[in-house]
């Protein structure tokens, strides 16, 4: 182990030994190191947001044929810093009749739920906040706290638009959790573990090859969890002012904003970790620092797709969104889960009789799973085609646009 290839573990060991030589007992040293690590991961998340906000605004601008931020720093890269300073100086406005404690608690919950996710994401084989053996479930648990933040924000603001936004949040965030959890179970099945780092270790063939449908369902439903376009019904500007965050000003609004952008990057990192092999790449096991590079390259590619979708898609209607979830994503995820479980078990039952090379086993397994996924996709497309005819129906008779209304009888007489 040396400083160049694995700096985080190196510094951790050095600091731990230093504290031990000062006569601090082992449990306290562990506690202090964990404390520092938690602070570092949190700070890193916030620092990352400063960059991703700029990146997203720049991409947004370029796609709309604008320049985007271009004044502060090279290519406007430091634009977020003056924005942060400005938002610090803004006045906090608390609406009359707002529930003060809950009103102030909501943005904190909203940001911390996203930040907590980073505790289990492995950046490299050795650089991981905490190796939890139920990491996947932890992700689900933390996600539900974010929903709580949105609901509380909407309720405490004493504003009908906020409350409507919160109602939509419940309908959307809670129901999209169902296909997300079901899709998360597929990597758990394939990797035989619930720890995030062991799932990365199990991906000698990336899980997107084994199960592209699971990757798509996970990606779609976590896009819906972030509450951004095309799923931004919680804050639909044309209908609800700004949804649950209408009444928030200053840094409290900033926290929702930071939470949203961090969430968008977090789902990219999670998709990269669970389906694109995380830190896996050439020489990542020998030089852990290289794993960080692979991880961020993959995450930013997925993030680019997230931003592209956000920029180019129109908003869904609430009934379309719920239909898409309950009538399409959830049955598909359930089918996929059952098929994957049966196929994987069957594959390992007949494997001894096949006389395959050890190196070829993961690839044959990937091929079998990919084939089953393609079959499911074909069947789904056929079903969608046959149901599309029924879905398009005439709601009402066409009527003339402008006809003078019949004057009431009292006017005529």
């Amino acid at each position, binding site marked *: 182990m040396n400083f160049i290839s694995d700096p985080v573990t190196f510094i951790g060991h050095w600091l731990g030994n230093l504290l031990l030589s000062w006569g601090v007992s082992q*449990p*306290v040293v562990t*506690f202090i190191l964990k404390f520092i690590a938690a602070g570092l991961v949190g700070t890193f998340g916030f620092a990352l947001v400063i960059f991703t906000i700029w990146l997203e605004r720049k991409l947004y601008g370029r796609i709309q044929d604008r320049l985007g931020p271009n004044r502060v720093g090279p290519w406007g890269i430091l634009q977020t810093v003056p924005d942060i300073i400005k938002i610090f100086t803004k006045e906090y406005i608390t609406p009359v009749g707002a*529930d003060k*404690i*809950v009103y102030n*608690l909501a943005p904190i919950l909203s940001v911390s739920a996203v930040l907590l996710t980073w505790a289990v994401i492995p950046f490299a084989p050795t650089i991981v906040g905490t190796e*939890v*053996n*139920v990491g996947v*479930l*932890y992700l*689900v*648990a*933390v*996600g*539900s*706290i974010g*929903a*709580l933040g949105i*609901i*509380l924000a*909407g*309720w*405490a603001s004493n504003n009908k638009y906020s*409350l409507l936004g*919160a*109602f939509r949040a*419940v309908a959307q965030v*809670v129901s999209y*959790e169902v296909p997300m959890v079901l899709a998360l179970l597929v990597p758990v099945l394939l990797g035989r*573990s*619930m*720890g995030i780092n*062991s799932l990365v270790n199990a991906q000698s063939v990336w899980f997107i090859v084994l199960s592209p449908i699971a990757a798509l369902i996970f990606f779609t439903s976590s896009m819906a969890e972030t509450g951004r376009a095309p799923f931004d019904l919680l804050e639909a500007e044309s209908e609800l002012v700004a949804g649950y965050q209408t009444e928030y000003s200053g840094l409290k609004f900033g926290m929702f904003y930071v939470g949203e952008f961090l969430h968008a990057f977090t789902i990219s990192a999670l998709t990269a970790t669970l389906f694109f092999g995380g830190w896996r790449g050439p020489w990542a096991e020998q030089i852990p620092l290289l794993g960080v590079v692979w991880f961020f390259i993959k995450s930013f590619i997925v993030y680019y797709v997230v931003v592209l979708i956000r920029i180019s898609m129109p908003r869904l209607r609430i009934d379309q969104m719920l239909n898409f979830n309950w009538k399409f994503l959830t049955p598909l995820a359930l089918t996929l889960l059952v098929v994957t479980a049966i196929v994987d078990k069957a594959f390992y039952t007949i494997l001894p009789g096949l006389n395959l090379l050890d190196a070829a086993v993961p690839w044959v397994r990937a091929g079998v799973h990919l084939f089953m996924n393609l079959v499911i996709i074909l069947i789904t497309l056929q079903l969608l085609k046959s149901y599309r005819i029924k879905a398009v129906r005439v709601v009402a008779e066409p009527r003339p646009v402008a006809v003078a209304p019949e004057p009431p009888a009292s006017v005529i007489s």
Partner: protein
Amino acid sequence: MTVEQIIFLVVAVVTLVAAIAVVTSRNLIHSALWLILTLFGVAVFYVLLDAGFFAVIQVIVYIGAIAILFIFASMLTRRVMQDTGPQSNSNWWLGALIALLLFGGIALVLISWQGFTTLAPILTGQSGQLSQLGLALVSPDQYVLPFELASVLLVAGMIGAIFVAGDKKQ
């Protein structure tokens, strides 16, 4: 005192205070929030007992599902059921009696328990426990019957809810 003991004491105090606040708070949403804090405290206890799976399930089921359901139900009642009327009805003495009896019973059982002074055994095979739990839930000579019964009960409840809430087509 070890770090774990300090964490236990702090979390225990917070959990108890939050649990009392659940029943004394006059605002339904505040009650639900205190309830969430209480449930979090219980989740921390599970973590201290090296039962990470239960801690996470506690957060998913009780905070992620049940508490959000509570809050959602009481969101519809913003100006109702708060700040008005007495907090207890004429049967308060019965409730107090039952609570006291329950407390006495638990205290009696705990007095004769030897576990206070012994150290917790160190668990081995953290990753194996999860699959053991899964196997125990579906193996016929262990818990498959209660597990399936609970599932049937939940499905029955769900069907009942859909029947009550759904449109009755003539």
